[in-house]
């Protein structure tokens, strides 16, 4: 915007595109932002949002209001090329009359809608359910750190009592989308454990981030071969935890259905059960592994990333109905989550994330426990301080090969029976293409393929040959 009136240079406070065009005290001409370090106010505000210390203080007003202001300011500039004339006009008739007069000449509302990019959001007030574990970090942190509001959404993140409840509340539409375990969208689509309803998993919340924790009294039984007769807990039957635990003990030669007992226990009760001696160990999500160490009840035997580096854990899931009937809202929501995930991926941001999600409204855990988990410098319960920065990591891309691996394991343990079209189900549920597209929109580089080979405990998995993989195991239920 060229500087028009001489009066602008004499003003002490300069305005920008985003300032109120109906303010008679300020000129509309100076470009740049209020702090002077950015090319435009938009850049300044974006920077401010990325830095935590600004996020709590300045609630950026809704996108719509901002766009309306921009359009109004452009119109005012056109009507009053000389800023002094604009200010005189405003002083004489007042801001509201000026707005009314302007609206007669020029339809401000319509112009704002056209200016707002990405199509109008069908629904701005959303409810997203989460379970208070560190796996849901991107979903949770997007609330205090402003990622949802950045994309124009007013999201309420609601803490939920358990996986079954989160599944029920998402199925009966009390939540628009939810934090789920990676196998859950697959199970719901296939109708295992609930009515078959098509679900989608456009983004993986976190990779790694779990651990096998044993009770302190088993300090000397640090080898899975010695675990015959032990009782283990996992959060849910359809969970990576269940499959990883079974895989791990099967590799050590134990049959997970006959040689050990596995039961589903809600994560917070895992630590209490460990203390009360009801279980000997658990493969569970953080923060409860670290919490067991913090409370002196257990020690960390092995991190899940040592079983399978980069395994998916929790997912962000939405029903297919939500995706197809409200595509713009879905895109905005997914973009917020992908943005948050990318932010969480960087090691330098982890400490501030731990501080943001520790309060009672979110995870309700001591901040030091979360810091240890997110930064990877932690106490292991046996007197050592370990350093593993990738203890938990965040990568949103839902590899379809993950889905195929999960399906092979579900078949291996008899959770689904009969022939399964692995590729078709994986493609239907893990929306790799959608996510790749949105990752590009927020400036990330998505992978070029949707499937890849990976190793679980040293054994290679080829997603093109799922049945061979299934047949290669000694211990299985098929």
């Amino acid at each position, binding site marked *: 915007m060229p500087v028009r009136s001489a009066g602008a240079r004499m003003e002490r406070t300069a305005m920008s595109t985003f300032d109120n065009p109906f303010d008679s005290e300020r000129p509309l001409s100076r470009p740049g932002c209020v702090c002077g370090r950015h090319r435009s106010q938009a850049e300044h505000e974006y920077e401010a949002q990325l830095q935590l210390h600004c996020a709590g203080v300045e609630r950026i007003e809704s996108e719509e209001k901002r766009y309306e202001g921009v359009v109004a300011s452009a119109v005012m500039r056109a009507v009053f090329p000389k800023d002094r004339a604009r200010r005189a006009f405003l002083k004489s008739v007042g801001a509201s009359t000026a707005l009314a007069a302007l609206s007669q000449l020029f339809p401000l509302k319509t112009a704002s809608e056209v200016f707002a990019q990405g199509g109008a959001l069908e629904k701005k007030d959303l409810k997203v359910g989460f379970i208070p574990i560190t796996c849901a970090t991107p979903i949770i942190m997007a609330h205090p750190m402003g990622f949802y509001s950045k994309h124009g959404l007013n999201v309420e993140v609601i803490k939920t009592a358990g996986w079954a*409840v989160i599944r029920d509340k998402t199925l009966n539409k009390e939540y628009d989308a939810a934090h789920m375990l990676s196998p859950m969208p697959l199970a719901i689509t296939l109708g295992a454990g609930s009515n078959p309803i098509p679900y989608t998993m456009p983004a993986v919340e976190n990779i790694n981030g779990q651990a096998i924790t044993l009770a302190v009294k088993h300090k000397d039984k640090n080898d899975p071969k010695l675990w015959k007769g032990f009782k283990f807990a996992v959060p849910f039957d359809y969970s990576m935890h269940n499959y990883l635990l079974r895989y791990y003990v099967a590799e050590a030669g134990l049959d997970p259905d006959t040689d050990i007992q596995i039961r589903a226990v809600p994560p*917070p009760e895992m630590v209490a059960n460990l203390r009360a001696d009801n279980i000997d160990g658990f493969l569970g999500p953080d923060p409860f592994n670290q919490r067991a160490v913090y409370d002196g009840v257990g020690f960390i035997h092995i991190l899940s990333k040592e079983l399978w580096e980069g395994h998916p854990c929790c997912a962000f899931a939405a029903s297919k109905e939500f995706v197809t009937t409200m595509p713009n809202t879905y895109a905005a929501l997914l973009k917020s989550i992908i943005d948050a995930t990318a932010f969480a991926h960087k090691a330098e941001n982890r400490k501030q994330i731990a501080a943001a999600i520790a309060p009672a409204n979110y995870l309700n855990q001591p901040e030091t426990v979360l810091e240890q988990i997110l930064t990877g410098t932690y106490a292991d319960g046996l007197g050592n301080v370990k350093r593993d920065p990738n203890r938990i990591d965040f990568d949103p891309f839902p590899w379809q090969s993950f889905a195929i691996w999960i399906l092979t394991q579900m078949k291996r343990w008899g959770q689904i029976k009969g022939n399964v079209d692995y590729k078709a189900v994986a493609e239907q549920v893990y929306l790799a293409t959608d996510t790749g597209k949105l990752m590009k929109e927020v400036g990330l580089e998505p992978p070029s393929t949707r499937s890849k080979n990976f190793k679980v405990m040293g054994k290679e998995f080829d997603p093109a040959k799922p049945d061979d993989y299934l047949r290669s195991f000694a211990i299985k239920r098929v």
Partner: protein
Amino acid sequence: MALTWRAALVSLLLFGSFIAVWHLATMGSGPAANMDPEYAKLVGATASQGKSAMPGPAEVGLKIWQHLKEPFYDRGSNDKGLGIQLAYSIARVMTGYLIAVAVAIPIGFLIGMSPLMSRALDPFIQVLKPISPLAWMPLALYTIKDSSLSSIFVIFICSLWPMLINTAFGVAAVRKEWLNVARTLEVGVFRRAFTIILPAAAPTILTGMRISIGIAWLVIVAAEMLVGGTGIGYFVWNEWNNLSITNVITAILVIGIVGMVLDQILARATKLVTFPE
């Protein structure tokens, strides 16, 4: 000394000894030896200093005081003050309870006044009565598909039975002489019900209501723990998630006190309608 004073003294002594025993039991076992200081910083007080995992009376007292100072704070949808949580729970209880009153008393009257209906409905009542509220919850969630309505339904179905049975009993036990007088005076059914049977059965009905409110309050805490959202049961679950036993104990005390208040309200109401025989 008068009986009230003596009773109060004994209560105080019992309370005092309970607190003393509690304090001794949670005093902790002293610091763990040979712990690397960097490690000690990363673990909590229990692991590094042998502090007892169970909180002592001083901690709980402090926590209660903190909650009482700020009962109505609201820091987000998952973190609200104790007062707000209680308000939500009480609202749900009242809704479920009043619906139960509206259903139980008329049906109780029907059963009490008609031996036929009494025999006919008896098997259903006997089978449905002992079912635990938590067993109703999954069915309610599945059919009603809304978690708050499901919790209200569960309260309704569980507080129904004591009121129903007590009303039926009270109605059936009205003195035969009075009913005979009514028959002599050719009093109509409804007038008989409202002017003779209701006042006569009122103490029994209110006793049933008093039992029901206790059950309803019990049920809401359990229902909220399962379903989440807002409410004192949810508060207990949220603090359990954080393994904050102090807050859980605070919540338990508050639940007990509110239950007592509700019970006392109905006890007063019962006194109002009791009559000397």
